[in-house]
């Protein structure tokens, strides 16, 4: 396979896995990560998809009380064994990947590690390095959107703290995305607004109609529906 074919396969596998997570959030049972691995003909691609979903694999556990079992956690650990977390990021894309990896490894260590590995869960950088200056809120919020897997309870850390501290910049970015009809970005930022509301942060707008407005327009892409399902569960909606 050439690199382009690899990327397509990986993206398809990640979309399928996101669909499983979405189903779990909607009450269809567990993610079934072991079944997913067994059903996938190409283990390397499947592990790559697990690695891409990262922290989102823990979403059913964190917002819908549907626990990953130990064997599923082992699959997540194996994905990071096969594809080690990004360390020493030098580009914007790598910095985003490093933070997403960090969130997944942190959750894995938090819930399933015998002892959290201090080196493995140390934040990759300071939040400003990946988010930029909050005064430049359109760029700042775009970076926040790319880090939407971190918008989960228990993730914490410098990026979440930085976003929690800037509800106005966050909601400006979300409003901008809606008005530009950039619904993928809007969905990711809507998830962040829901997290802040869940954490008790006072927001300058009501996140519930924002989430619903985006949900009605975002289409059928499972990873975006996953963002919105997380958002609705964080806001206490019964049906997602």
């Amino acid at each position, binding site marked *: 396979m050439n690199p382009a074919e690899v990327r397509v396969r990986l993206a398809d596998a990640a979309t399928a896995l996101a669909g499983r997570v979405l189903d779990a959030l909607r009450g269809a049972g567990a993610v079934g990560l072991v079944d997913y691995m067994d059903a996938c003909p190409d283990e390397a691609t499947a592990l790559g998809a697990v690695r891409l979903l990262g922290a989102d694999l823990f979403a059913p556990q964190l917002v819908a009380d549907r626990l990953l079992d130990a064997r599923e956690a082992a699959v997540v650990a194996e994905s990071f064994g096969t594809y080690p977390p990004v360390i020493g990021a030098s580009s914007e894309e790598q910095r985003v990947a490093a933070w997403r990896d960090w969130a997944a490894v942190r959750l894995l260590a938090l819930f399933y590690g015998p002892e959290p590995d201090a080196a493995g869960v140390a934040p990759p950088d300071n939040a400003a390095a990946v988010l930029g200056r909050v005064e430049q*809120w*359109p760029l700042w919020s775009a970076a926040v959107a790319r880090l939407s897997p971190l918008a989960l309870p228990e993730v914490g850390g410098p990026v979440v703290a930085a976003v929690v501290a800037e509800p106005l910049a966050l909601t400006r970015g979300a*409003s*901008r995305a809606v*008005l530009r009809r950039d619904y993928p970005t809007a969905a990711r930022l809507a998830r962040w607004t829901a997290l802040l509301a869940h954490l008790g942060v006072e927001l300058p707008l*009501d996140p519930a109609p*924002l989430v619903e*407005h985006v949900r009605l327009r975002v289409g059928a892409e499972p990873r975006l529906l996953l963002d919105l399902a997380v958002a609705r569960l964080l806001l206490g909606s019964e049906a997602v």
Partner: protein
Amino acid sequence: MTGSSVARIAHDLSTAALDWLHANRERGAFPADTGADLGDPDSAYKPLGETALAASLVLREGAAGSAQLRTARELVDFTWQQMREGALLYERQLRYPLLTDPLETYAHFARSGHRHDELEELLTHCAAVGSMVEVVPNRRLAVANAHRTVGVGADDWPSLTRATWLGQTPPPWAIDWMTGYSVTHTVFHLTDWGARPDGLPADMTAYVTDWLPVWIDIWSEVGQWDLVGELLIVGVCLPRPRLDAAEWARLAALQHADGMVPRDGEPVTGSPDQRFLNHQHTTVVATVAGTLALSRLLNGAA
């Protein structure tokens, strides 16, 4: 950039825009046989009123140099002559007592010292009768502000304010282009074009302060410069004015060498008359924006 750089941008923007309105004023004149019926009120009547508004605010603020004040006075006098020194407005109000445009137009002249006693008597009576055509809520505020400026009638400002889109403070992402203009005009009238910043209720002030950067950003991206100019005026009208140097520089960079400011991102084409027709409103907006920004900066509000 600093406040002084915004002041320089605002001064240059409004000076050149006012000069363009003055140089092209005859293009906006009424046809020779214009009566109180007007036919199409939007063709010359409305633009003449807008030019009178801009010039009246230059005179009210007094922040411009003597040459600009003279230009503004000439423009007010020119438009007043076009209104046959108020007679056209009087005849139109007499003939159509429910219309609000004679009052709204007259307010710009009353602000500049041109009065018409018979018209004011008539406007007082109309206000007492309290019967006017139905208008959208922000336009109703325009009537209230005109009443206040002329000194007739008494309006229920709180209920009129809450009837507007802005008065409801809806989700900031649930706005469209036309509603953007409803927001700008609500602020213009509540604050009497920046003269009464505290006329905007505190919750609405906070709301506008929070979301104005978003609206300026998204309508700048699509080159809706007329609306962006009005939103910059909104920023100037706030109790703590928003005077972002980058936003002002972006609008100023669009101004043509002759002072005209284009309404949108489309190419500027056509005859001089067509250019006036298409871009007079935005050039009025630029005049008002620069004038009010400079005034508030000089008065130490920003």
